[in-house]
């Protein structure tokens, strides 16, 4: 869970409205995130203060009438000042759909062409241009997705562990500590049996594929 998601759950959790699963996820996040703990404490205090306010107050009839009148005036003024609808709103839904499909097809086609050309001609400059193009486009997607994609494309650099790790890491750090064991788990489970196996013929190539697919 990320801080943004946690913050959305803060009011419901103060009101005891979360499902157990959500509550648990939030609790896990809070154990690892001091900022969200502070935020939750502030939310709790605020809601308590609000709850102590009187539920109803008697207002002078004149005040209600004036307030409603002003709200109507404000809404009217906003409607008159609103900008004209953008040009694409005038297009029909089928036209928009066709345009979207065309753009998607073009994007897929370009990507295929890019992949094929990169594979067929292994020029470092081309690869550099490709990664540069991808890096530029990554600025347009959500920060998490961009971070993941960058991590997949750039060579891994040694970096300091963050003070506030990503939710996946914070929720199960031992998974990542034991990652090498998990990657080789089948080998390790049958370690002794494998070591005593005799190899007297060339290995079956299909077995190699299985090994690659299962780790």
């Amino acid at each position, binding site marked *: 869970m990320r801080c943004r998601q946690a913050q959305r759950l803060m009011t419901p959790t103060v009101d005891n409205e979360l499902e157990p699963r959500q509550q648990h*996820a939030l609790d*896990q996040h809070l154990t690892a995130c001091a900022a969200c703990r502070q935020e939750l404490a502030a939310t709790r205090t605020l809601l308590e203060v609000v709850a102590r306010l009187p539920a109803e107050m008697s207002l002078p009839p004149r005040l209600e009438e004036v307030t409603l009148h002003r709200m109507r005036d404000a809404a009217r003024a906003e409607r008159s000042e609103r900008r004209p609808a953008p040009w694409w709103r005038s297009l029909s839904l089928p036209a928009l759909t066709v345009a979207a499909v065309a753009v998607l097809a073009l994007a897929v086609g370009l990507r295929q062409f890019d992949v094929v050309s990169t594979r067929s001609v292994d020029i470092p400059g081309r690869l550099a241009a490709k990664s540069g193009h991808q890096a530029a486009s990554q600025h347009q997607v959500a920060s998490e997705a961009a971070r993941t994609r960058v991590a997949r494309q750039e060579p891994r650099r040694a970096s300091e*562990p963050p003070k506030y*790790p990503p939710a996946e890491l914070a*929720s199960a750090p031992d998974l990542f*500590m034991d990652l090498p064991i*998990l990657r080789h788990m089948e080998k390790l489970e049958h370690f002794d049996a494998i070591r005593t196996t*005799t190899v007297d013929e060339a290995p079956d190539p299909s077995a190699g594929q299985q090994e690659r697919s299962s780790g």
Partner: protein
Amino acid sequence: MRELVAVVLLLVPLLASPVGAQGWRGWDQLSPEEQRRAWDNYQRYQQLPQQRQRMIERRYQQFQTMPPQEQQRLRQNYETYRGLDPGARHEFTEKYRRWKSDRH
């Protein structure tokens, strides 16, 4: 949403296992060295294809349900595997392929 499901999937076996009930440690409770190792491996994990990530999550769940002595056995085997020189590791890999093809 997918991340939320993944986190919940990771948490379920954690809480169901004896490790989850007693020995689970949060990020802040890890030593700096452990944090560094977990962070490095997390970055490697992020580079894996999603299918492989799901497979590791399944194995993690399986690992969590193993008795502590079985977990310890796997850790020892890993240390042995890690200590193999390149020739011995190649031989082990050949044996693994043979063992696997015999098995299926």
